[in-house]
């Protein structure tokens, strides 16, 4: 037997030593310190004092974010009860008007959720209203970014991520809308089946692939369920994270103003002030969604009945965000080719697949097209006031007008019955309106922008109107003007004005030159420093010549 070796009890290896007490480097105390020492919370929150500027329009994106959170919370509740199955069952629940009717398990479980699960109907309605708010807030947010030019360098990638989020939200909403397998959503699914089949050459194969055979088959609801609760929410989460990360990396844009430059940012620190504001806003959004869910009925599937391919109902409409596609298809004339025993349904492919493709492509490439036209390669952290980019603003409003016309056309039957006009008349009108109204909208919007620019110039040179009418000794009347503050004058004049590129045969070709001229045309020149100084002198002399000065202010305008 081996004897154990002698141990030297005084060896330093044997000494029991406590590690030096670590002073936590920051002021976070208690549990925060505990977490920090394990996952580096403080470093994670290094950005905690990041500053966010304040403006209501910067909160539109937050509405979308919070609605998404509400969707996740309410969606989880729904998954507990919803059965994504197209197996036919006979309804035996409490809703008498469906008793004994054969329906899919999906529809039966939606009825169950609505009538037999405590709080189920409320959660369903909150979920659906939140979905409507989600897409609507996203749309509003996107329009804000567009009209203020926040998509310009360096934020083009975040804009593209946003377009991805927007398109995915539509798919997510559509998938969710289809899940209950009711008569309306089944008709919507039938509609999409038609879209898919209209794709030239491969349409039928795609249909068979997606539906596992001919419409409706028995696979589409389980598949849409997977798409709706796993695939798209996962992608949305990933894209939202990227969207937020880029936001923090780029920092938020801000409106021009005194002390605000391309290189600083004014506002409140993220912690604690912005957190308080944003947290409060979350609860407001949640409250609005709950109030809507509690007091406003949405998607009463029990009235629509279960989907049955042999049935269809008047007033079949998709949720609002798919309405523009529906409208485009409703008003497109019946263009079809019949070649060698095959059918080419341009009447569905062009307005359906084509229009959606056009919308998302146009949105995605716009930042690059605008930069190409203006030749602007600099970074922008200060926002444009919409009036100072008249062509962009005009294009945006024209796009909204076109979208709006298509959307209205999607409700042509409702318009016909509500306003007592003929369905055909609405349809013919819309066929023209989708082309004419956007052009008018562009022209009118650009005019309005230029007038607003003119009134800005007047305000800088002559000050704000006081409402005090002064009578001069020789009997003339004029309104007294009060000079505006230097800060306001700065805000009104700091914006760069686009200049037309001159075609040089190399990078700037004829087309680019012409577009660039079109883009820059008609801007009202900003007052120069000399003009402002002269106007100030003038104001010091007296106010009685204001009326005359007002007229001369107009001579600066170009046409």
């Amino acid at each position, binding site marked *: 037997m081996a004897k154990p070796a002698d141990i030297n009890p005084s060896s330093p290896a044997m000494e029991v030593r406590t590690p030096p007490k670590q002073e936590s480097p920051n002021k976070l105390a208690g549990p925060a310190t505990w977490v920090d020492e394990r996952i580096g919370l403080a470093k994670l929150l290094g950005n905690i004092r990041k500053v966010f500027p304040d403006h*209501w*329009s910067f*909160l*539109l994106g*937050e*509405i979308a974010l919070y609605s998404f959170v509400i969707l996740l919370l309410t969606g989880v509740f729904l998954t507990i009860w919803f059965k994504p199955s197209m197996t036919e069952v006979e*309804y035996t629940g409490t809703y008498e*008007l*469906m*008793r*004994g*009717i054969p329906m899919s398990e999906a529809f039966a479980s939606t009825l169950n959720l*609505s009538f037999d699960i405590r709080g189920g109907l409320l959660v369903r309605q909150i979920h659906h*209203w939140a979905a*409507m*708010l989600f897409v*609507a*807030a996203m749309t*509003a947010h996107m329009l804000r970014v567009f009209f203020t030019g926040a998509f310009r360098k360096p934020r083009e990638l975040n804009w593209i991520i946003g377009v991805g989020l927007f398109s995915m939200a539509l798919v997510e909403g559509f998938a969710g809308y289809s899940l209950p397998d009711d*008569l*309306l959503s089944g008709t919507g699914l039938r509609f999409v089946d038609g879209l898919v089949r209209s794709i030239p050459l491969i349409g039928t194969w795609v249909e068979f692939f997606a539906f596992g055979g001919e419409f409706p088959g028995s696979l589409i609801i389980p598949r849409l369920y997977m798409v709706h609760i796993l695939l798209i929410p996962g992608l949305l989460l990933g894209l939202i994270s990227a969207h937020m990360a880029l936001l923090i990396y780029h920092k938020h844009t801000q409106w021009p103003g005194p002390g605000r430059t391309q290189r600083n940012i004014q506002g*409140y620190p993220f912690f604690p*002030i912005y957190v308080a*504001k944003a947290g409060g*806003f979350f609860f*407001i959004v949640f409250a*609005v*969604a709950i109030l*809507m869910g*509690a007091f*406003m*009925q949405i*998607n*009463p599937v029990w*009235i629509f*009945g279960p989907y*049955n391919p*042999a*049935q*269809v*109902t*008047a*007033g*079949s*409409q998709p*949720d*609002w965000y798919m*309405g523009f596609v529906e409208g485009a298809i409703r008003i497109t004339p019946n263009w079809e080719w019949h070649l060698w025993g095959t059918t080419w349904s341009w009447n569905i492919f062009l307005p359906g697949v084509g229009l959606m493709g056009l919308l998302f492509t146009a949105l995605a490439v716009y930042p690059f097209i605008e930069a190409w036209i203006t030749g602007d390669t600099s970074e922008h952290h200060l926002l444009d006031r919409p009036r100072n980019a008249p062509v962009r603003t005009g294009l945006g409003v024209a796009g909204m007008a076109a979208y709006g016309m298509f959307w209205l056309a*999607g*409700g*042509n*039957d*409702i318009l*016909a*019955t*509500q306003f*007592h006009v*003929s*369905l055909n*008349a609405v349809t013919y009108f819309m066929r023209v309106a989708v082309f004419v109204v956007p052009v008018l909208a562009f022209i009118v919007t650009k005019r309005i922008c230029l007038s607003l620019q003119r009134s800005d110039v007047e305000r800088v040179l002559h000050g704000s109107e006081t409402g005090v009418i002064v009578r001069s000794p020789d009997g003339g009347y004029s309104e007294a003007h009060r000079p505006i503050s230097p800060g306001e004058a700065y805000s009104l004049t700091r914006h760069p004005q686009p200049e037309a590129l001159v075609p040089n045969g190399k990078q700037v070709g004829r087309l680019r030159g012409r577009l660039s001229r079109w883009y820059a045309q008609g801007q009202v020149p900003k007052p120069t420093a000399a003009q402002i100084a002269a106007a100030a002198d003038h104001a010091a002399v007296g106010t009685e010549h204001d009326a005359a000065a007002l007229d001369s202010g107009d001579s600066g305008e170009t046409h």
Partner: protein
Amino acid sequence: MRFLASAGRQSLRRHKAARPVLLALSLFLVGAVYAAVAPATTSSAEGAPNEQLIAQGKDLFAVNCASCHGLNAEGLAQQGAPALTNVGGAAVDFQVRTGRMPMGNPYTQAQGQGQGKQNTFSDDEINALAAYVASLGTGPDVPTEDQYSPDGLSAEDVARGGDLFRTNCSACHNFKGAGGALPNGYVAPSIENTDPAQIWEALRTGPGQMPVFASGAIPDEDVKKMIAYVEQVNATPSAGLTLGGLGPVSEGFWAWVAGIGSLVLAAIWIATRGARA
């Protein structure tokens, strides 16, 4: 009564005694007509057409309907009014009770479709008109209550009625009978407040653009179930404000107006609130 009132209007109106005399006369006539009609219903139920009733109907028809449909209900092409020789009493009962006939102006037919007009005929007059038209040829008769009354149906029956309604009617009238648009300015009207007898008659006579659903295709038993369904689905409480009940179009509208609208107001409030730091 109608022709009497109009005759009085022309010749006697200005006479001082016109009013009291007319009143007395109409009271007398009401009594007389009642006496004539009251036994008529019982005898027609026995299957024997009542000559008096038919004669009265013929008179009413001559005054109110013949200008368009012809004196013998043979139809007048220049008025676009069809022959009524084989439409049956049910068609007359339906058209007059729902205010469609007598039509005001045939040229606004597509737009008007008799909507917004009130029936101004009494039950007796309608019975007389129906009896007269029924006597001209074939066609469905005015239904008796046991043909359309939805009383005594089980929950399953009513649910089955819903299924039938969605299969046969909702394409034009919408899933709960709220109505919908048809091409060329026609509409399928709301049937939410239509009386059961008139629903039965609409099916059997196919007014305007609506197809005829004969009893071979949909027996009376099924019609009762559909009638019961439409009645009950419109009586069920809703899950909150129905927002016009126009489906997704109005839901989208309210999501923007109420939802985004109130949240933007909240955002403005939050953004203008500074921090007291």
